[in-house]
């Protein structure tokens, strides 16, 4: 895989198809990977690809909207690219997508790699990128989507759920890393930074933190592509995927929609049906 990615990157840079290839290189622990921007063929051999390449690189494309860029994309990352194209943030012809087939990634943090794949990967149906210009790896069969984690939470009593989330939100330090890592969070001014009116107070109290975490998740309803970058980067391990996946599950059930699968589909909150019957609404 790595050799194919390097060869493709070299070709794209040599022919001037792109100015930059965004991929992965070895991190300073000698074990895991980190994002890298390759601007010339001299750097191509720095590119690596293995089980530690967990980052979703697609957000970096927003820093290079007007430039031609190649990017290494796993299936979930490719959905993020579709999302950005769908929302008019990115032009398809500026991006060259080197898609990689994915069998699920382990939990990776600095100097640590788990043996088992991540939970979310075990539940992820996409094994092949949904959009690419060049595919690396042998296509494998898609898996069924399951939401057993969300269902477990749904089936807990309200007090238990409330207690669980208050404890999680109480730990939040509001560094906003979840937002910064999210490819879907690109507002020029985030609601949390607005001062007039101030939606989220400066106090980092559980009540203000709840405001931040719930609205952040809801702003991604029908948009989250389950790359789980938010949860991966969270320094205090708030299980944000449980919030995002609840919305993903309901959006799928109510509107038969999955974000980022196709770049053209109109997202559920941009449209409506006059005579639809939605669960819980008269």
């Amino acid at each position, binding site marked *: 895989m790595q050799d194919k990615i390097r060869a493709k990157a070299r070709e794209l840079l040599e022919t001037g198809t792109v100015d930059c290839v965004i991929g992965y290189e070895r991190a300073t622990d000698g074990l895991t990977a980190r994002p890298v921007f390759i601007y010339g063929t001299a750097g191509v051999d720095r590119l690596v690809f293995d089980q530690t390449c967990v980052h979703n690189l697609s957000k970096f494309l927003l820093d290079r909207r007007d430039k031609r860029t190649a990017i290494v994309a796993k299936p979930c990352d490719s959905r993020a690219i579709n999302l950005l194209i769908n929302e008019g943030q990115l032009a398809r012809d500026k991006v060259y997508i080197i898609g990689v087939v994915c069998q699920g990634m382990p939990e990776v943090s600095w100097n640590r790699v788990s043996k088992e794949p991540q939970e979310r990967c075990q539940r992820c149906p996409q094994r092949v990128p949904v959009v690419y210009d060049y595919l690396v790896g042998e296509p494998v069969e898609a898996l069924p989507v399951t939401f057993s984690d969300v269902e477990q939470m749904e089936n807990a009593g*309200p007090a238990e759920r409330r207690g669980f989330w208050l404890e999680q939100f109480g730990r939040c330090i509001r560094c906003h890393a979840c937002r910064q890592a999210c490819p879907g969070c690109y507002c020029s001014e985030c609601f949390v930074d607005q001062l007039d009116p101030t939606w989220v107070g400066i106090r980092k109290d559980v009540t203000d933190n709840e405001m931040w975490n*719930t*609205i952040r998740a809801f702003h991604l309803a029908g948009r989250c592509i389950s790359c789980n970058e938010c949860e991966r980067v969270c320094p205090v391990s708030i299980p944000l995927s449980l919030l995002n996946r609840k*919305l993903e599950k309901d959006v799928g059930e109510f509107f038969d929609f999955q974000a980022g699968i196709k770049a053209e589909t109109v997202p559920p909150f941009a449209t409506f049906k006059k005579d*639809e019957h939605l669960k819980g*609404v008269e």
Partner: protein
Amino acid sequence: MAVGFEPRVVGFLCNWCSYAGADMAGTSRMSYPPNIRIIRVPCSGRVDPLFVVKAFQMGADGVLIAGCHPGDCHYTEGNYHMRRRFALLQPFLDYVGIEKERFRLEWVSASEGKRFTQVVTSFTEQLRQLGPRKDRELMAAKGVQRAV
């Protein structure tokens, strides 16, 4: 049911139908529980999920959104958008432990003064049955540290 508990309800009422409906209830001297604090919005579609979560953060026991009946929106489609948003937001808030019984979407037209009083009465009663929110107790039980 907590003794002496009076729920605090925030009602976001669309200017064209539901607010007029509330007005109608008032001018017709129909009575409804004083628990509701009404915020007039141009359209039910104007209600951002932010408003709802903010109301709960500020201590509301229940939030009501009332707008024109489907098909009657002054802006043609605002209430259809709200309907979708509500369909997703209500179970989501329930999921984080703000029970779905605390959050309602109702259609009330300008002529439905009676219906407005019924909605507010039944909602207030429902919240009274549900009792106050237990956030403080739960935080204490979970050892959640508050900002100083």
